[in-house]
């Protein structure tokens, strides 16, 4: 049902105007986004709840950065025999080591959880020596060992960063616009963050430090999106004196729509290049960004603005009533 309403006012222009023009969105009328507010917020709510359920039941698959432990990346000259690698590792008492292919069949990723009795820093040598004795062609490409305390601190620092970014954004938007805007934007964007995390929980993708960085970057970036819409709303309140609040918001969203899609499209081009060409290390980073970008379009248009309505944004938030009083006097 919603699809149908979307299609009517949207006209994709290819012909008619000035010949060579390329313009995706020539929108004649404002799209009544606010009238679907009820549906979109409920869709959001459902996705949000699903994401939370995944987070609660499955939890995030934290990488070695957060849990502590050792990760080794080995490169073999010929396709590696994972079972043999597993056998060799159990030979030195590492039964709980996870062995899997990484990128290509020549690359093997070994993950060993933290142990109380052995020092993690010795472990990498032990593994390397063992594998080396079986196959001299094996090359150690990467080792990461994170002690338990460091992992704990990284989790704390990550949470602090998230909190600080959220507070910073709310304060900035409060100063620049109004508290209602700050609150609406941060709720909409934290909803994005929860959904990204929900995806990572649902598919059990590894949540590493770089994914956390991507999540925080998305937070800053998608607030961006809300700011552009809010900017228009503020401008419209000043310009379109007769229009209803809903109409003003609809107009603001419709006018910035084209920019929204093009900007996100361009950013997504870059992120897609990273997703496919950036290698394994950047893969999940780019994946988190992709989900973040997609949902930030949705949330800034269809979550932040309805929230703004719910918080009761009005013309008086921008135009001081005092000025009107003075106008009445003479």
């Amino acid at each position: 049902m919603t699809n149908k309403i979307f299609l009517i006012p949207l006209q994709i222009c290819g012909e008619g105007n000035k010949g060579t023009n390329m313009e995706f969105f020539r929108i004649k009328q404002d799209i009544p986004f606010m009238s679907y507010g009820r549906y979109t917020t409920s869709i959001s709510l459902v996705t949000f709840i699903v994401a939370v359920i995944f987070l609660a039941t499955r939890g995030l698959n934290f990488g070695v950065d957060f849990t502590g432990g050792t990760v080794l990346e080995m490169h073999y000259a010929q396709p590696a025999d994972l079972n043999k690698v597993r056998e060799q590792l159990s030979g030195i008492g590492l039964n709980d080591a996870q062995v899997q292919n990484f990128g290509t069949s020549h690359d093997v990723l070994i993950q060993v959880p933290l142990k109380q009795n052995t020092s993690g820093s010795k472990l990498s040598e032990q593994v390397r020596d063992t594998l080396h004795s079986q196959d001299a062609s094996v090359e150690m490409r990467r080792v990461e060992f994170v002690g338990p305390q460091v992992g704990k601190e990284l989790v704390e620092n990550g949470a602090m960063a998230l909190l600080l970014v959220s507070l910073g954004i709310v304060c900035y938007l409060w100063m620049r616009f109004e508290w209602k805007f700050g609150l609406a934007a941060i709720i909409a964007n934290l909803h994005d963050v929860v959904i990204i995390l929900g995806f990572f929980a649902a598919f059990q993708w590894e949540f590493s430090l770089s994914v956390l960085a991507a999540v925080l970057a998305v937070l800053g970036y998608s607030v961006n999106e809300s700011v552009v819409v809010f900017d228009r709303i503020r401008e419209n309140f000043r310009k379109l004196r007769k229009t209803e609040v809903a109409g003003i918001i609809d107009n603001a969203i419709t006018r910035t729509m084209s920019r929204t899609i093009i900007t996100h499209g361009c950013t997504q081009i870059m992120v897609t290049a990273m997703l496919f060409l950036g290698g394994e290390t950047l893969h999940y980073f780019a994946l988190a960004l992709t989900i973040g970008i997609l949902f930030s379009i949705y949330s800034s248009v269809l979550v932040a603005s309805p929230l703004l309505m719910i918080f009761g944004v009005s013309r008086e938030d921008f135009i001081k009533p005092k000025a009107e009083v003075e106008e009445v006097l003479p």
Partner: protein
Amino acid sequence: MNQYPLWKNLLILVALIMGLVYTLPNLYGESPAVQVSPLRSGVTADSTLMGRVETALKTSGLNPDAISLDATSVKARFADTDSQLKAKDILQSNLGEDFVVALNLLPRSPQWLTGISALPMYLGLDLRGGVHFLLQIDMKGALDKALESAASDIRSTLREQNIAYAGVSRDGRLVTVKFRDAETRGKGENEIKQHFGGLLLNDKDEGGEFLLVAALKPEEEKRIQDSAVQQNLITLRNRVNELGVAEPVIQQQGADRIVVQLPGVQDTARAKDILGRTATLEVRLVDEEHHYAEGSPVPFGTEMFKERDGTPLLVKKAVIFTGERISDAQPGFDSRDNEPAVHINLDGVGARKFKEATRENVGKRMAIILFEKGKGEIVTAPVIREEIGGGRVQITGRMSTEETKNTALLLRAGALAAPMDIVEERTVGPSLGADNITRGFHSTQIGFTAISIFMIAYYLMFGGVSVLALGANLLLLVALLSMLQATLTLPGMAGIALTLGMAIDANVLINERIREELHNGNTPQASIHAGYEHAFGTILDSNITTLIAGIALFMFGSGPIRGFAVVLCLGILTSMFSAVLVSRALVNLIYGRKPRLTKVAIG
């Protein structure tokens, strides 16, 4: 109509030229080099060293591309890795043990660029390959050790002064001394107060016992912790020198951690072995009856060690005591003649042994030998002037303050280095590093091309302007990163790509606004003007929120994430400049002079 004042155009031009100049070194690439740096504090890198390097290379038929001298080292650049490796062996055997010869990479950029300190970006370990260690110092252990030795010192002090006590025990962070009556406790307290300035003393009566409870003063605790960190830093530096790493990073992080980064080191086992080695210290007597002659065998019961200046000395094999007995060593001055001196504190056992040894050997020399990796070196070999009791030893004589500081450090290094644990390790092989660079570079290149094609197709001339502005952004960002020598990591490279993708937003905002103004029926010139004016506020707002995220990431992120944050923040600044000023200048150049402009190519 749309014209920038001259100064604004000039500003943009200057910024772009600077950007170009500082980006250039990145394009020249790097070539293999050998770096020679002196190991001892007495030797400096100067023109004589440069001459030695030059002749050594010439006589063996190696022709370096360039030899340069800087504050700490002499560097020789070669065309290929083969001659680099050969040169390393030749130099190492030629110059001896006083110098570290390390492999390095040097920028190939011409002299004039290096002259204005335009260097290529500083690559992080994940891009160039290498080892990163985070070491945690066991502060609890250091404090326990300090208290333990305080307890044994109190014991021997009380015994010396003939003050009767019933027992001294350490319990956690407290040392408890038991006395039989209040009077002796008072005497003991005075004595202890006199000798141990760093202890906080409290009387306590408990179950008919007269107790004196001593704890470390907070400032003393801090001093012990600081000196533990400093001492470990020095020890690590000495050891890393031995590894022959060109640009090691050894830094304190937080209160009790040390970061060690060794670019280019692959053999982690050896690196860990050398870093984790414990030095031992031995105090022995010098054999005064025999003299060392080169070539002849050393007399029975003696060993030959070299002093720090290289003079050989025969030392008896019998050990008086080892470094564990030294509880502290500090540089200072002799209280009588103000000569620089090293003050050593021995624990109870050490003090007793030292007293015996000095009583029997007045007028003879004793040697303090530091053993590292099974190799001994004499730190100092002073003459015994008199019998020394009480465990407080002072070494003076012909030392500069610098030397006393070094000696004290070496003594401590062998004596009470607080134990360290590796709490984080990240090793990246060189092939993976090179792969990471290629991948990062490729994805940026392809993304940039795709965006360019799209922008030009969609916005025509204005799209072209946006692409040029985006190019300027990349140029300025790389230049800024090179100038600041900020560490570029793989997430940092992702950051470059991401900021480029995000930077286009500003131009899209402007172009969309101009289109809209045109649709509203405004003249092209007015539309351009209004487009830039109106979009600026929005661009500012939206960038500041991203900047907030970037700053938070920088504050709380570690390692590679910090690299991402730096790029993100700098990228936002350069994109504001290029998207608004550079693109406007270009538009002005193309359209600005035509007063009766009827059509602009914006699609």
